[in-house]
């Protein structure tokens, strides 16, 4: 399966690009509905290619986010590892869901991630983030079909190039 490991680099590009996009400057009004693109990318690739992208990839993306956003080292890494584990555990069920059910599942995962951040902020003594954290979850849920369509394109192209993927 790992005959051509170099061919997965576009996925790494997508994952780390999603993490970098999280620090794209947005006006205050739009920042409230900034979707957690990195989380959605991690969910997608863990669900579709669980043998290649799992806990380690999620942890690395999380650490990148921690560094880029100036949080406690490990905050995003922990949240994304938990999300990746749950996705890994149920990937056979959720990837055959119809789109609306899958969107619901992703919404639940995003809400869980927000709750983990809420919990870490509480333990670490950071000021609470306020309602913005939950409007972002909502925005992520609504945008999932779009994100999924884009990632499907990337995946289908990679699978066409090398049928051993998947």
């Amino acid at each position: 399966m790992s005959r051509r490991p170099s061919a997965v680099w576009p996925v790494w590009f997508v994952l780390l690009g999603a993490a970098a996009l999280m620090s794209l400057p947005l006006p205050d009004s739009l920042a409230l509905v900034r979707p957690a693109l990195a989380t959605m990318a991690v969910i997608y690739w863990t669900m579709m290619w669980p043998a290649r992208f799992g806990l380690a990839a999620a942890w690395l993306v999380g650490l990148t986010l921690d560094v880029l956003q100036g949080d406690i080292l490990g905050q995003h890494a922990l949240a994304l590892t938990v999300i990746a584990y749950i996705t890994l555990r149920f990937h056979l069920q959720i990837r055959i869901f119809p789109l609306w059910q899958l969107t619901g599942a992703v919404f639940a995962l995003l809400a869980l991630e927000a709750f983990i951040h809420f919990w870490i902020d509480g333990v670490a003594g950071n000021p609470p983030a306020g309602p913005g954290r939950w409007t972002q979850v909502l925005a992520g849920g609504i945008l999932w079909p779009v994100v999924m369509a884009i990632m499907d394109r990337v995946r289908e192209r990679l699978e066409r190039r090398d049928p051993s993927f998947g």
Partner: protein
Amino acid sequence: MALGTPESDQRGLRESNPGLRAVIVCSLTIVLMAVDSRSEMLIDVRRLLAAAAYPVQVLIDSPVAVGRWLGESLATRSQLSTENAALRQQILEQSGQLQRLASLAKENARLRALLESTAKISDRVLVTEIMSVDMNPFRHRVIVNKGTDDDVFVGQALIDADGVVGQITRDRVFSAEAILITDAEHALPVEILRNRLRSIAVGSGQLDQLSLPFLPRNADVVVGDLLVTSGLGGTFPAGYPVGTITAVNSTTGEPFLDVTARPQARLNRIREVLLIWPGDPMPIEAESEAPVQGAPGPAADATAAAEVSP
């Protein structure tokens, strides 16, 4: 859709036992978080990681930077000459005011010398830019494009043309992370310019609001009072404007007044900010300020502080 064979996935996953791995990774990550938030051990690791992330941040900042550069390059001649005229007038007015400041500063230094107290007359400043990179969306943190390469140190004060902006929280080589005064974790010692009443201005988490939670009910504070830094605490040099009082409410039964202020600095639209080295005279003024330098206090402190932070 080629989703692959479930059997092969399952076999691969069972062999690696994701449940156990998840528990181990999460426990180690929690240890990492505890170490990072409670101790200074990881400060060098962080600096290294942040240095690795700097190119990404430059890339994210680049569309805005290019846009600004294009805007400047493509400005029409009339726009430039209008701006030039306005700036000329401003510099004339300000140098007029500065003439008096120089003599007042000398007088202040003489009087302080009579009192045998040290004087902090001039601070060295350096213009830096806030990069257009969002950090954690729920905190008021920014990245500035000067770092330890330019002697930036942790705790250094940042101001803009109107007032105090924030302070440096993490220094890196070519950039630094700063916290704004409106962040809910930030507090700075202030005094009311009118009567030198001291208090603490705490960030509210909103970019246009500070709160002063520790003023007793009989405190002499009215709407419109100007808050300046008091210099207590040592982080912010004294006398820089911080904000204007916008509301004073007293609730019966509460021991303290509910006072809010609006920051002087326009925190939501600034790009250029100034880094301050307190008590460290500007290189150009070094000669004229030489007599004041006789008192070894502040300048020595500042260089010591700069050296302590690597």
